[in-house]
């Protein structure tokens, strides 16, 4: 077959090709390593004289270029057709996706992670203390000997005379003091329990967070900074907080922390009970007697304790109106987090 015939044949076959795969076959057939034109090109050096070699070269290369162009055009044409076809399929890209089950972490767990991360950045370490606690760690060693009237602040659930369900996470305090040496920087985010009937705002089971920091020269100014640092992360940079005196037997001076109501900005609304402020945290400088009970010399060291109720804080932050939602397992609630 001469060059012209090969070319004609090739162009006709390319013209009929209807898939990219077929084009690939044709490319190999004519231009591949063993393709027909390639073979003719390989034969050129065998031609006896220069002029013949020259003209054969020109003819074959022209044919080669022609086939290459045809392949390219055909390839483009097929691609265009394909594109046109893809664009014409019946499909609605706004149909909802196929359901893929994803679960959720409980809002209190997510809040716990947030709180932990916030204070871990400052070097506080998560600790735990028993839920079933002795009267000593829950009360006695926190400057509340038996029959101390301040115990009335906590309606406590008892198992026996000496064993109770801890009524606050402050039972970590003397435990950690006895385990460690200052500087002590620990925190606990865990459950506690009180004698409370269930209603939208009360629960016998709830969560508390406690921060304990003991070192030389720890002051209320540090407490204030830590309190502001945290509350701004929860309620936003513009959050206003204030300190006022508050009595807890295990701190002195004692502090109540208020946050300006994020809803009414202090004007007074239904959510803050028209007070303009939320009492959001309790704190103070660890009482010298408590430091002594923990084996720490109050003449050398001082400490701060700061705590809040995550259930309530989350309720305020998110506008949740019933604390029982946290503990009932309703997926309509849980899946929102």
């Amino acid at each position, binding site marked *: 077959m001469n060059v012209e015939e090969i070319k004609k044949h090739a162009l006709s076959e390319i013209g009929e090709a209807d898939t990219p795969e077929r084009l690939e076959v044709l490319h190999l057939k004519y231009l591949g390593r063993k393709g027909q034109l390639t073979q003719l090109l390989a034969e050129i050096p065998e031609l006896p004289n220069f002029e013949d070699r020259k003209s054969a070269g020109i003819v074959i290369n022209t044919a080669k270029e022609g086939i290459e162009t045809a392949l390219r055009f055909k390839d483009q044409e097929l691609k265009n057709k394909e594109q046109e076809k893809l664009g014409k399929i019946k499909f609605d890209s706004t149909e909802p996706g196929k359901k893929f089950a994803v*679960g959720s972490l409980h809002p209190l767990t997510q809040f716990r992670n947030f709180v932990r991360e916030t204070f871990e950045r400052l070097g506080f370490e998560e600790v735990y203390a028993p839920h079933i606690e002795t009267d000593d760690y829950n009360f006695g060693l926190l400057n509340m000997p038996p029959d101390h009237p301040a115990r009335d602040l906590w309606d406590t659930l008892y198992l026996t005379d000496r064993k109770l369900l801890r009524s606050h996470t402050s039972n970590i305090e003397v435990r950690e003091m006895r385990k460690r040496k200052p500087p002590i920087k620990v925190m606990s985010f865990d459950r506690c329990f009180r004698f409370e009937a269930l209603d939208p705002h009360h629960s016998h089971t709830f969560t508390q967070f406690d921060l304990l920091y003991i070192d030389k020269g720890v002051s209320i100014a540090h407490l204030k900074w830590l309190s502001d640092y945290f509350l701004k992360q929860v309620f936003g940079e513009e959050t206003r907080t204030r300190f006022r005196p508050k009595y807890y*037997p295990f701190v002195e001076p004692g502090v109540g922390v208020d946050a300006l109501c994020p809803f009414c900005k202090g004007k007074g609304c239904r959510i803050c009970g028209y007070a303009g402020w939320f009492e959001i945290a309790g704190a103070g400088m660890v009482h010298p007697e408590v430091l002594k009970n923990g084996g720490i010399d109050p003449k050398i060291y*001082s400490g701060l304790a700061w705590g809040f109720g995550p259930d309530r804080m989350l309720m305020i932050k998110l506008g949740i109106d019933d604390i029982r939602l946290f503990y009932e*397992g309703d997926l309509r609630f849980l899946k929102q987090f």
Partner: protein
Amino acid sequence: MLIPYAWLKEFVKLKASAEVVGEELSLATIGVEEVRREGGEAILNLEVTYNRGDLLSILGVARELAALYNLNLQKEEEEFKPPANTQNLVIKSDKDLCSLYTLVLIKGFSCQETPNEIKKRLRYTGMRPVNLLADITNYVMLEYGQPLHAFDAEKIKKRDPSMSIEVRNAKRGEVIKTLDGLTRILEPSDIVIADRKGPIAIGGVMGGKDTEVEVGTKEVLLEAAIFNPIAIRRTSRRLGLRSEASIRFEHYLSPENLLKALNRAIKLYHLHGSGEVGGFGQIGKTKTTPEPVNLDATKLNSLLGTEITITEARQHLTRLRFKVMSSTKGLIAWPPHFRGDIKHEEDLIEEVARLHGYDDLPATAPCTIATDTPENIFEYLRNNLSKLLAGMGFNEVKTYPFLTTEALVHKGSGGLLKLRNPVSSEAEYLKDSDLLNILNAARVNTPRCKEGRLFELEKVYPKEGEYFALTALLWGIAEPYRTLKGVLEALLTKTHLNCDFAPAKDNLLHPGRTAKIIVNNKNVGIIGEVHPHLAKSYSLTDTALFELNLESLAKYARRWGIFTLIPPYPEVYEDFSFFFPYGKQLGPLVQKIKTLNEVIRGVELADLFEREGKRSVTLRLTFQSSIRELSSKDLKPVRRKITGLIKKSGGELRG
């Protein structure tokens, strides 16, 4: 404590509104629950705490406000001194029961009505007017914070003409009919006021019916005392009698204040009822001896983070009626008689801070050296396993730590920890496992969800000791046991532990489809299908659950596994299909194959079905050598060993 604002203003000339004064108190002294208006009268509701018993009185709050606003206190009474030649009343008392006991005999009462103003104020503060003689004791108590009790002296004389009054412990079995008409059986820990015939009052808690004052009473024996607060607290709790008086007796009371209150009451008796003092008796300490407290200027500022001068501190304390003297390091302060709460330097620092202004204290970032904090594998597991489960479609729930009465029907209460004072029978027994609680949470959702997946990570409280359990439950899903086991195995790969399963029994789980979870030869949990009867009673079907002791698991779990190089030679896959009778365990066989030869890189269950009662199993094995490409010939000996194992374990190879 309810404080009518107009009454307060009699003691201190406040100019601001009740609301503003309330705000000031709450920022400098004590919580103010609300300021409400009743019939044109503003009433402050104070949340008085144990340390500030002095604020359980109009005068006490007035003293505090006088300090806050730097005003003078008006019309505080002098301490009572009996007129000369007053008849001496004989009293016996014990200083451990009662640090000060005084009785004043007041004679010649003419029957009169309680003035309306007094009645009104009693009502504003939540008390019920009774008769002039009782009302004045209550009125003075509200004003001065010192409870008083009026006995009808003539009634006592009838019982015991000698009027020998004694403060003593009750005798076992002693009985008294109290003012509320109930007969009370007394305990030796109770304090009684008694004459020779027996108790006439439960000291500090309630008077006796027998000696009650009424309209027409001519002679009164007026009692003012400071009882042992712990004894009062115990008695009032035991009898369920907490009164305005007993609450005040639980707090610190000062003898100086008692004598002022007594003077006030006597004056009012005279003014409104024409009563005259006719006798007086007193036993105990009439003066407070305050302990001086040192305030070190350095300590003051290091605890507050401030630069407050001793001069400023001195001014604040003086306004609060402390007596102050300079010392080399700062000052020495003697608290006023009405403050029983000042014992430590830190107490003084709080006083200074309050008057300086808590809200004006600076905020300073703490600056400490780093502390050595070892990695906590429990925290690692807690966070990561929770996130993994959530990723696998499980929703985390939090349930109460108690078993409901319904749960107890299924489980029985034997072996459970029990509360002595439960809130209700639904919260009396502590859960020793989460199973029934998580079933209950699942049921909440059954009206809407035919299937679901839940987990909880919380403490459970078996008798042997509380621990954090990780419990996961799924329902409404085919092959629940195998599905959940797959979840569990996936979780456990992240702990880099080898775990085994062995058939187990649990009353609440399916008797056939239950296994214990074993790690390092230790039982760390249980997995099983929930017993169909139990599932049904919780409106669930196809339900499986596992419970892991996360604290045990944390003892063995590792954050990092062992890395194996990926060989450059291709993997070869081969299936082994065989019948495997029920009654034989597939788990151990798979484990054995896995460790048979180092070219076996993986064993997976590719297919499992049951036909004509026979279990058909297909295991897909991955072979790979780390030194060369494997040929079919290379695998021949391994293959023979595998088929041998299968047969030995009771399997029957399929064609």
